[in-house]
C-alpha cells in the first residue's frame, strides 16, 4: 500500500513538467483595478483613443454585473483588487533600449518546446509567443507577409492596422456578453491577430503559445481571427503556467469571423497548471470563445483538449448566420484530483441549411467534477438546420462526478436535432483483456482512454495530436489502484 502511495505521490509531483518559473525582470503594475489602471495599460501599449474608450465602457459595464454562479463549479472567491493586470517580462531594466529578446525568455520557451528561432522550428508552424501580458515574438512573419497574411500580436495590430481591428473587435463577443467578457474587454493585454485575405490558403499552421509567469497576475489575452472569402487557416493554441499555491486568473476572449466559402480550424491544447493533488492552487480558466460564420458555405471547427486548469469555464461557440454554413465542436476534457470543468458549446443556427456537429468526451478521475453544458438553438428562419450531438463521460474512481446539461431550443419544424449521451466506467473486460496480455492496469487505462478520445484527437493537427495523446496519459497517471 505504502509503495503504491509513494508511486502516486511521485507521479503527482512529476506530472506537471511545465511548473517551473522563469527568473526574469518583469515590469508589473500595481495591484488593483480602476479606471486609472485601464488608462495605464492603454498608454503603455500606445493605444488610440477609441480603444481606451472601448475599455472604459466595458469596465463601467463590468462594475454593474455580478459574477455568474450557474456553472456546476465551486468557485473560490476572486479578489479582483488583489490581481495585477499588466506584467511585461520584455521590459529591460532601465535604459537598455535594444530590441533583442532576453535570452532568459528564449530559454523559457525552448524549455517549453516552443523554439522562437525560425531555423530551429521543426515544422512549418508560425508561433506568436505570449508571456504574461506581452507578446514576446512572432515567428515567420515575413514569409506570411508574402501572401499578405497578417499574423501579429493584437497590440501591434492596433498600431499597424487600426481600421481592421476596429471593424472586428467586439463584433463577435461584445463586452456586454458576460461578466468575464466585460472584464477582459476592459483590461485585455496581448493575444494574436490574424487576417487572411481573400482566396488565400494559409501555407502553415499558425499558433499562439500563452505562458503565465509572474506571480499575482492575471492573463487577459484577446485573439481575433478574420478569415476572408474563400480562404483557409488552421490555428493552434497552447498554454502553460508555473506551479503556485494560489489561484491565478485567466480570462480570455477569442473572436473568429468567417466569411463566404472560408474555413477556419481552431485547435486548443489547454494545459494550465491544474493545482496540486490536494486541490491547492491552479489556474482559473474563464474563457469566452466564439466564432461567427457570416458567409455562405463557411466552415468553423473547434477542437479542444482540456487537461489543465483548476477550474475550466469555457464554451467555444458558433453563430451560424451564413446559409449552408457548417460548424463542428470536438472536445476532450480530462479532470483529475480536485479539478472542475464546466465546458461545452453553443450552436446557434440562424441561416438556412446550416449544420453542426458536437462530439464531447469527458473523463473524470480522482475527486474531480466534469460537466458538459451545451446549447443547440434553431431560429425560426433556419430551415433545414441539422444538429448531431454526442457526449460521453467516462468515470475513473468512485469519488468523481460526470454531468451532462444539454439544452435544445428549436423554433423551426424543418430542423433535425439529435442528442445522445452516455456515462459509464472503463469496462472490466477490456482491462482484464489487456492484463492478460501483460499490459499493466495503468498502461491499459491509458490505452483505453486514448482509444475513447480518438474521435477528437484525430481532428487535431499532427504535432498537437501526439502531444495531446501524451498529455492524456500523463493527466491520468496515478488514477488507478
Amino acid at each position, binding site marked *: 500500500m505504502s509503495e503504491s502511495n509513494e508511486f502516486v505521490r511521485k507521479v503527482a509531483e512529476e506530472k506537471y513538467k511545465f511548473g517551473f518559473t522563469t527568473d526574469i525582470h518583469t515590469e508589473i503594475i500595481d495591484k488593483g483595478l480602476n479606471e486609472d489602471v485601464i488608462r495605464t495599460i492603454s498608454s503603455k501599449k500606445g493605444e488610440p483613443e477609441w480603444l481606451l474608450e472601448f475599455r472604459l465602457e466595458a469596465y463601467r459595464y463590468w462594475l454593474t454585473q455580478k459574477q455568474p454562479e450557474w456553472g456546476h463549479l465551486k468557485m473560490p472567491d476572486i479578489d479582483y483588487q488583489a490581481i495585477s493586470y499588466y506584467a511585461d517580462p520584455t521590459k529591460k531594466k532601465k535604459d537598455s533600449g535594444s530590441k533583442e529578446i532576453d535570452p532568459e525568455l528564449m530559454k523559457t520557451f525552448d524549455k517549453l518546446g516552443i523554439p522562437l528561432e525560425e531555423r530551429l522550428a521543426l515544422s512549418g508552424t508560425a508561433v506568436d509567443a505570449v508571456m504574461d501580458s506581452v507578446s514576446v515574438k512572432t515567428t515567420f512573419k515575413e514569409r506570411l507577409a508574402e501572401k499578405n497574411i497578417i499574423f501579429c500580436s493584437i497590440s501591434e495590430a492596433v498600431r499597424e492596422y487600426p481600421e481592421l481591428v476596429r471593424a472586428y473587435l467586439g463584433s463577435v463577443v461584445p463586452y456586454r456578453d458576460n461578466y468575464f467578457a466585460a472584464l477582459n474587454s476592459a483590461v485585455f493585454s496581448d493575444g494574436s491577430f490574424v487576417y487572411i485575405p481573400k482566396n488565400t490558403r494559409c501555407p502553415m499552421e499558425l499558433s499562439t503559445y500563452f505562458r503565465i509567469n509572474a506571480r499575482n497576475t492575471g492573463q487577459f489575452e484577446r485573439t481575433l481571427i478574420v478569415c476572408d472569402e474563400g480562404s483557409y487557416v488552421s490555428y493552434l493554441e497552447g498554454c502553460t503556467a508555473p506551479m503556485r499555491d494560489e489561484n491565478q486568473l485567466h480570462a480570455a476572449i477569442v473572436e473568429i469571423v468567417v466569411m463566404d466559402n472560408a474555413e477556419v480550424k481552431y485547435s486548443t491544447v489547454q494545459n494550465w497548471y491544474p493545482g496540486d493533488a490536494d486541490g491547492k492552487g491552479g489556474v482559473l480558466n474563464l474563457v469566452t470563445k466564439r466564432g461567427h460564420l457570416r458567409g455562405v458555405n463557411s466552415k468553423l471547427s473547434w477542437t479542444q483538449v482540456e487537461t489543465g486548469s483548476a477550474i475550466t469555464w469555457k464554451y467555444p461557440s458558433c453563430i451560424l448566420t451564413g446559409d449552408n454554413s457548417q460548424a463542428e465542436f470536438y472536445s476532450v476534457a480530462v479532470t483529475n484530483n480536485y479539478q472542475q470543468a464546466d465546458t461545452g458549446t453553443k450552436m446557434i443556427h440562424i441561416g438556412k441549411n446550416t449544420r453542426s456537429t458536437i462530439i464531447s468526451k469527458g473523463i473524470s478521475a480522482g475527486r474531480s467534477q466534469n460537466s458538459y453544458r451545451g446549447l443547440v438553438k434553431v431560429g425560426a428562419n433556419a430551415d433545414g438546420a441539422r444538429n448531431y450531438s454526442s457526449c460521453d463521460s467516462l468515470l475513473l474512481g468512485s469519488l468523481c*462526478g460526470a454531468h451532462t446539461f*444539454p439544452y435544445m*431550443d428549436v423554433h423551426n419544424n424543418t430542423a*433535425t436535432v439529435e*442528442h*445522445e449521451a452516455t*456515462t459509464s*466506467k472503463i469496462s472490466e473486460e477490456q482491462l482484464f483483456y489487456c492484463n492478460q496480455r501483460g499490459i499493466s492496469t495503468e498502461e491499459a487505462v491509458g490505452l483505453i482512454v486514448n482509444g475513447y478520445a480518438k474521435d477528437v484527437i484525430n481532428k487535431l493537427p499532427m504535432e498537437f495530436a501526439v502531444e495531446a495523446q501524451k498529455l492524456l496519459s500523463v493527466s491520468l497517471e496515478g488514477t488507478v489502484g
Partner: protein
Amino acid sequence: MNGGKQYIDLYRESREIIMQHSASLMNAVRDEAFGCFERIGFPSRKVERYKYTDVEKAFAPDYGLNLTRIDIPVNPQDVFKCDVPNLSTQLFFMENDAFYKGNQRSVLSEDGVIITSLKKAADKYSDIVGKYYSKLADVTSDSITALNTAFAQDGLFVYVPRNVQLKRPVQIVNILRSGVDMMVNRRVLIVLEEGADATFLFCDHAMDNVHFLTTQVIEVFVADNAHADIYELEETHTKCKRFSNLYIKTGGYCTVSHNNITLFNGLTRNTTDVILDGEYSELTLNGCVVADKKQYVDNNTLIDHRKPNCTSNELYKYVVDESAVGAFAGRILVQKDAQHTVSQETNANLCVTKEARVYTQPMLEIYADDVKCAHGSTIGLLDESALFYMQQRGISAEEARMLLKFAFVGQVIEQVKLEPLRDRLQRLVEKRFRGELNKCIGCAICK
C-alpha cells in the same frame, strides 16, 4: 415577486377562515409553508427548474378561492360520461379540491384500505396522516408546493395496508366546476405499506367555460416490496392552468411506474420528483403530450438514485402542432453510493409547424462510477421516406402523416399495463389526431 403579493395578502386576510375549514394536521404546517412562500416568492425564468414556464404570469390574474367550502350543487355522475369502457374501476370523484360527498363507499374497510377525504382522514386517522403529510413535498425549495401547502384545505387520502393488493384500479376523476374564474389547491396523499399493490388513474376534466388555475401536490410513499402504477390523464380545456407537483419515495424492491398523458390543456406544468431510497427498485416514468393551438406543456422530472442497484427508465414523447410549446427537462441524479445504477432517459419530439416550439434538456448528474446511464433526445419532423412509402401504397398523404404521428406516441401508450385503458387511450389519441376529439363528452364548452 409582485405576482406573489396578492397571495401573501390573501393568506394574511383569510388565515383564520382557511384553518377553520380544514384539519388541524394540515393547519400545523401551514404557517411554515407560507413563510417559505413569502421568502422565495414565485420563481422567475432565471430559476433553472422554471426556465420554460412563466409562473408569475400564470398566477397574476385574480381567481376566486372557495375558502369557506361552499358546496357546488352538482352530481358528477350525471354530467360525467368519460369512463373507460370495460375497465371496472373503483370510481371516485373529486370536485375541485374536495372529495365528492356522493362517492360510493368512502372507506373500503374489509382489508383496511382507506380512500377518503384528506381533511376527514387527518382527523380520523391522524396517526397515519401525521406520519406522512407534507413530509416529502419540500416547501423550502419549491414555491408552488409552499403555496399549495399554505392554501390546501382538502384533498384525497389513500392508504393501502401491508400485503393488500387492490384488484381493481382506483380511478379518481378530478372535476373542475365553477361559475366564476377559480383557483383550486388540491392535495393528495397516497401511502402504500410493505408489499401493497395498487393502480391509480387520475383523470382531469373541466366542466365550465371559465378560467381555472389548479395547484396540486401529490405525495406517494411506496414501502419495501410494494408496487404502484400511477396514470394521469389531462383532458381539460384551453382556459385551464395546471401546476402539479408529484413526489414519490420508494423503499427497496419496489416497482413504480408513472404515466403522464396530456391531451388537452391550456398551460400545464408537471413536476415529478422521485427518490429511489431502497435497493433493487425499478422505476418507469413515461409521458406523452399532444399539443396544438396555443397549448403549453412543461414536464420537469428528477430521478434521485440514492441507493445502489436501482433501475430507472424514462420516456417522454411530444407532438407539438400549430403554435403550441412543449418543454421537457429531465434530471437524473446518481448519488455517491448508488453503484450499479442503470438509467435510461429518452425524449423525442415532433415539431409539426413552423410556429411550434420545443425545448428539451435531458440532464445527467453522476457521482458514482460503476453505473450505466444514458440519455437521448431528438427533435425532428416526420420521416419523408416513410411518408413516400405509404403514399406509394395508396395511403393518402394526410392519413400517412396521421399514422406516423400515431405510431410515434404509440410507443408510450403501449407501455400502459391496463389493457382496457390502453385501448381507450389509443382511441383517444387517434381521435385527438383526427381532430374529432375536441373535448370529452361531458364538458360544458363542447356540448
